[in-house]
């Protein structure tokens, strides 16, 4: 039968009450029993069916739009005689910019926090602190979006964005009117949401650096900071890279909060202060009103593109994480 986790152990001989009972018990004592096997296989089959169904159904619905535009769907979306309805390229740019802002903001803060928790904090402090930071991940994205829209956006419009405009070097990034909803606001909201991921994974990477490596540096005359810089961080590098990539994946998948703060503008953003659109926000804002047929198929096409990018990034991060575990075990 199927290979199982443990070796088969034949049951001990029972006192013969009836040959049939014995025989049955011997039969069912092997890998499970039929009912159990059916249970397991149905669970697996249903799950597999759902995953396949998801992919097939989305591709099927989007096929009309793909067929209509071909590869050019990826940048110009579906072209309608009167206007570009769904300029995929602009949505992709928006997605990339907001994700980039999120990473730039969240990674230094997240890795610094992880370093604090791993190297500086006394034990009684690091556990409760990391629980608190994980709690941010528990907050529903709609609540974060609401807060971003009603609290953060005015603050950005009146204080943060003008501040960035005033900084001489950043002019190229920050120009134009500061209304609030913008790329930079969306990026910041995303940063808040991916921070726990970065902190948790980076912290795990830092603490898993062997004590022996730290001791070696210390015994050579390194200060505590030097120990972290020369022994800990290089050892944790792969883990931190994986953390960043997985956080990117998380940012890509986050649609509702971004939709609330990005301003829904379909022209190419010329500054971080401009409102824009991402794949996620475009999907949310258009699916409801899309007419069945090419219209709706185009929106689902956007879903397929978003799914593709997200899965690629997530898989990349997972593979990196697994390769790090492998090299750790291989080191003597």
């Amino acid at each position, binding site marked *: 039968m199927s290979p199982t986790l443990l070796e088969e152990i034949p049951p001990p001989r029972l006192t013969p009450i009836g040959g049939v009972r014995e025989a049955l018990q011997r039969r069912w004592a092997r890998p499970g029993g039929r009912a159990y096997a059916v249970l397991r296989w149905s669970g697996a089959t249903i799950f597999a069916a759902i995953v396949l169904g998801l992919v097939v159904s989305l591709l099927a619905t989007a096929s009309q739009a793909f067929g209509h535009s071909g590869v050019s769907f990826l940048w110009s979306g579906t072209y309608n005689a009167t206007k570009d309805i769904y300029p995929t390229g602009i949505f992709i740019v928006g997605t990339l910019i907001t994700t980039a802002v999120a990473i730039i903001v969240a990674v230094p803060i997240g890795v610094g926090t992880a370093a604090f928790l791993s190297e500086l904090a006394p034990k009684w402090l690091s556990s409760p602190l990391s629980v608190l930071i994980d709690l941010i991940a528990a907050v529903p994205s709609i609540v974060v979006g609401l807060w971003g829209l009603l609290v953060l956006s005015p603050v950005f419009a009146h204080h943060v964005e003008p501040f960035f405009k005033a900084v001489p070097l950043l002019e190229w990034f920050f120009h134009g009117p500061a209304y609030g909803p913008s790329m930079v606001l969306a990026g910041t909201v995303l940063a808040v949401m991916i921070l726990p991921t970065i902190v948790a994974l980076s912290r795990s990477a830092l603490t898993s650096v062997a004590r*022996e490596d730290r001791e070696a540096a*210390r015994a050579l*005359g390194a200060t505590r900071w030097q120990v972290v810089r020369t022994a800990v961080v290089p050892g944790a590098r792969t883990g931190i890279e994986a953390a960043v990539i997985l956080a990117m994946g998380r940012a890509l998948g986050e649609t509702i909060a971004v939709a609330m703060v990005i301003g829904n503008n379909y022209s190419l953003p010329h500054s971080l202060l401009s409102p824009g659109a991402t794949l996620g926000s475009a999907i949310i804002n258009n699916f409801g009103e899309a007419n069945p047929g090419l219209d709706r198929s185009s929106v689902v096409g956007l879903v397929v593109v978003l799914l593709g990018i997200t899965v690629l990034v997530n898989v990349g991060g997972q593979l990196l994480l697994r390769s790090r575990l492998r090299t750790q075990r291989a080191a003597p």
Partner: protein
Amino acid sequence: MTIDITTTAGISPEPGPSSGSTAAVALRDVNVSFGKHRVVRDVTLDLLPNRVTALVGPSGCGKTTILRAINRLHDDTGGTVTGQVLVGDLDVYARDTQAELVRSRVGMVFQRPNPFPTMSIFDNVVAGLRLNGVRSKAVLREAAEAALHHAALWDLVKDRLHSPAVRLSGGQQQRLCIARALAVEPEVLLMDEPCSSLDPIATAKIEELITHLATDVTIGLVTHNMFQATRVSDYTAFFLLGEDRATGELVEYGPTEKIFNSPSDPRTRAYVSGEVG
């Protein structure tokens, strides 16, 4: 029980000669505790210049603890050290002594080889120099070559200095760690059971190394292998758990020959004849 070392075979510690040569390490009434638990009590012994001193005894008697007290590694683990530790004329635990500076004068090799896994062989060897602010490429190269020669590793790695250190075998990695410790030209080299995770051939190579290294550094060697002590050391300090079965103490200290052939303390005699431990 404190041992007055002037009573053992009439040898007294020589004061460290001036710059360019090794210094003695002097421990006087050193106690190490973790919280309320005293791990080792009242240790008075010397690591004589250019000599190999072995610290032997069964596991858990405080030999490693005492070794780590010399380069202040207990600062990081929360151990409390009382008594006096002198490296040459430097009072290791004086209030104005910087631990990092002590550690650049007292090197350490650990039980399991621990080269920095992300660095090449060369970067590993010069790591200590870089950490202490030495930048000059010429100095680094010179020091690396000298250190690798001393560790009997130069011929093996001279053509692949920039390959990853983890590709070396266990014994080679340990010699790399020795080279790394030597590159900063310490006056004292502390070795904590350096061969315990190695095979007999690698062990023999390192034992051979130890006897040669003593020309340039003072060596303190912790080992649970009596025979290794007899093979490589000049002086031996024998540790045992005290009567309370909780705190280690120094039982006897003297020239290796005497400790193993004509020990003064009955406990020492019992241990070296194989009756216990």
